[in-house]
């Protein structure tokens, strides 16, 4: 038995991401049941075929084969046994699915908003975060999710859960992460240019640490004392997923690069020019459609009106100034 468990653990490490939620092991157990029984079946059937090929290889051109048209007993057997097996797999899969679906009553609720190409999280006390979902350890967390544009999908491999996030309706999912740490979030419903960069991290805190984080960020956040305005700006551009579309090394992505942009003139799509200064950057953050730089597509960047306060915008401007 021990040896079997060791084998399973070894396979788990090889094929599946680390299990970081309370339900992940249920999925993994079923995963291995189906895969190992399929493996046995495959090997068995291939072995029979190989045996037949060797045994009944054509020896001469005049060989005559016997007439075997069917065998009811055999055919019923190989219909009924797989039927029983798949019904077991069905029932097992459904049972785990129900566990994944039914949210415990005491779950801690977080609102999730998806849009091209970022994840924004809103907490009970008004705190918000983008790109990082902060949750307490060892407590069920329920996500109430909606999209601002197209369909996205919230996928945490380490929790073995996934749920589409649809515009015009709310979808829900829940998980319980027993230990502090981090888990990767992917968007798994194709949503355009930045689809593969639409990632986030689940940060699981110890209970006290989580309370501290919530308190610090209530009401939208202010500059941490240990950071300069430009450093804070850099942090904000990462948290708000600005860098999904704007590079800082001059390479062309979905939006213009920020490298050396400050103080330079930019040509707009209507042919006019504008100097990139504090006002232009502020306007571009709050009303992205107002002035589109030539060569870039309109309608891609979301507005940050109501997401970033003046202090945060100032910090981002300070940061962009440093990118010479």
């Amino acid at each position, binding site marked *: 038995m021990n040896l079997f468990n060791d084998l399973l653990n070894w396979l788990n490490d090889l094929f599946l991401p680390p299990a970081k939620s309370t339900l992940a092991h249920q999925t993994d157990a079923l995963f291995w049941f189906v895969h190992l029984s399929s493996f046995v079946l495959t090997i068995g059937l291939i072995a029979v075929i190989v045996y037949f090929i060797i045994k009944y290889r054509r020896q001469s051109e005049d060989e005559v084969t016997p007439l075997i*048209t069917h065998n009811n007993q055999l055919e019923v057997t190989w219909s009924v046994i797989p039927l029983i097996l798949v019904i077991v797999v069905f029932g097992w*899969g459904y049972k785990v699915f129900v566990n994944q679906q039914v949210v415990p009553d005491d779950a801690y609720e977080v609102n999730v908003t998806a849009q091209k190409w970022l994840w924004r999280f809103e907490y009970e006390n008004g705190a918000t975060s983008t790109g990082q979902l902060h949750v307490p350890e060892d407590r069920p967390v329920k996500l109430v999710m909606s999209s601002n544009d197209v369909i996205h999908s919230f*996928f945490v*491999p380490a929790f073995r859960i996934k749920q589409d996030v649809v515009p015009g309706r709310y979808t829900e999912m829940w998980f319980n992460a027993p230990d502090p740490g981090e888990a990767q979030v992917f968007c798994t419903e194709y949503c355009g240019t930045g689809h593969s960069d639409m990632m986030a991290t689940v940060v699981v805190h110890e209970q006290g640490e989580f309370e501290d984080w919530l308190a610090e960020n209530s009401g939208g956040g202010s500059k941490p004392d240990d950071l300069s305005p430009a450093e804070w700006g850099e942090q904000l551009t990462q948290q708000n997923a600005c860098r999904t579309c704007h590079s800082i090394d001059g390479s062309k992505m979905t939006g213009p690069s920020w490298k050396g942009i400050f103080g330079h003139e930019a040509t707009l799509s209507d042919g006019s020019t504008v100097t990139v200064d504090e006002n232009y950057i502020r306007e571009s953050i709050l009303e992205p459609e107002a002035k589109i730089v030539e060569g870039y597509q309109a309608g891609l960047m979301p507005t940050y009106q109501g997401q970033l306060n003046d202090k945060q915008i100032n910090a981002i401007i300070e940061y962009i100034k440093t990118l010479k």
Partner: protein
Amino acid sequence: METAEASSNLKKIQVQRFKPESDPDETYLTEETGIWSWLTTVDHKKIGIMYLASITFFFFIGGLMALLLRTELWTPAKTFIEANTYNQLFTLHGSIMIFLFLVPSVPAALGNFILPMQLGAKDVAFPRLNLLSYYLYLAGAGIAVFAILNGGIDTGWTFYTPYSTSTGGAVTTMTFGVFVIGFSSILTGVNFITTIHKMRAPGLTWDKLPLFCWGLYATSIIQILATPVLAITLALVAMERILGIGIFDPALGGDPVLYQHFFWFYSHPAVYIMIVPGFGVVSEVITTFSRKHIFGYWAIALSSLAIAFIGFLVWGHHMFVSGQAALASMVFSFLTFLVGIPTGIKMFNWTATLYKGSIDLKSPLLYIFGFFFLFLVGGLTGIVLASIALDVHLHDTYYVVAHFHFVMVGGMVMAFLAGLHYWWPKITGKMYNEILAKIACAIIFIGFNVTFLPQFVMGSQGMPRRYFNYIEQFQPFHQVSTIGSYILGFGFVMVFYYLVKSIFRGEKAPANPWGSRSLEWQVASPPPLHNFHHTPVIVNGPYDYHKPMDEFQLGLAESGNGHGHESDAELHTDGKSIEAE
């Protein structure tokens, strides 16, 4: 008394044996020549060949795109193409391979050529409609190519709303192209069903129908019933884009999940449009090269129909995480498992057919064994995905990508190649290089596994599909997969090389190089313009390998229309009398 009554109902027909010419002077290729005779032909054989040439062209275009995609994935982020180009490429790879290659591959190319011959008919029931189907296919393909050159599409082949109704590019043109191709598919389905019902030669009762025909019959039913739903769905998408009518876009009051229901109502059965004809090929090749009667004829024939039927009721398994009701997911999951049963029955029956056979490992059979392993893996990973809890983790990851490539390429393309090699001597009258064929089969098999096995692992670990960029942990898997795709690509080019070469330099093929009992092999290679110089009469089934060859190759001794259903016949062949049931 009973005997007397029974025999009074018997209609006596005189039959005689017609041995096919070994070196025919006149064939369908020599009787009408010139480019115009091809473009206006109503001959099912020439139309089949035109389909074959077209799908081969699109297969290599789609394959080239796959190689570009795999090359781009050599490193995370940009390797040599931009994200938007990447997104267009995977959309086109999927659309071209599915709508322009897989759907018409076996039915329209091989089916067109072989089906009337297996029925002992001169042609399909509606030859002109058959030509129209081909031109609709070509027109649809032309519109799709125009869309690609004129803005491109980046929606994925699934065209999910509201992304597809809001993104730029030529989505409307592309959907129109797919819409037109759909009609080609419907008309082919109508044609085949009518042909199978009305054009069977005397004595060819339903229980003597080759299993390839049963496969095409089941496929045609799906084509007729499912494709119109795709047409309606695409028309609705176009209406939303052009007229702003809110059907799927929530901003206009529509429901995006409704689109997914419509789309998969077609596209799941479409998966069976692609694979069921492949099952038919497997039955033909396995019996011929093991020289043995098929095991469980009715089980195989009816399981195709069962798959076609249940296949209509499982579309919701693509939507377990879409937000559909948990109860709906449960029902769809259960029905999906049920589809696995008839598919499993087929696998077991084919294996049992080999028992006590006389197995000759020629290249078509090698492709079928490739099919066996790959389709088994594809099918069993389908069982994994049908289980809701597992699908929640694996949905839209590379696990799914690997699964459907195992079914579609490992299953369908291998079956298609088996069929192509099997019927190549009949189609062209030439033999290909058997050694090269065996080597190519091995290269394709190895290349395929190197490409797609790592994708199961990275999918299980969480690598999502349709990703231009990826986290570094997945890079080794992507690189192995990319190397595999080059091997696979080389294998396909090799097949193309030796098959085309055989047309010019191949040895002449005898009428029946494999010793098959099936009707299409009882005429010369290549066949005469109207397939049979005589009306064939069928006494023995297509898998009656226990009976000697001279009980086949029979035809009406006198001329006559002969298209009746006389299953009872008293036969005299070369003075020998055969009591038929």
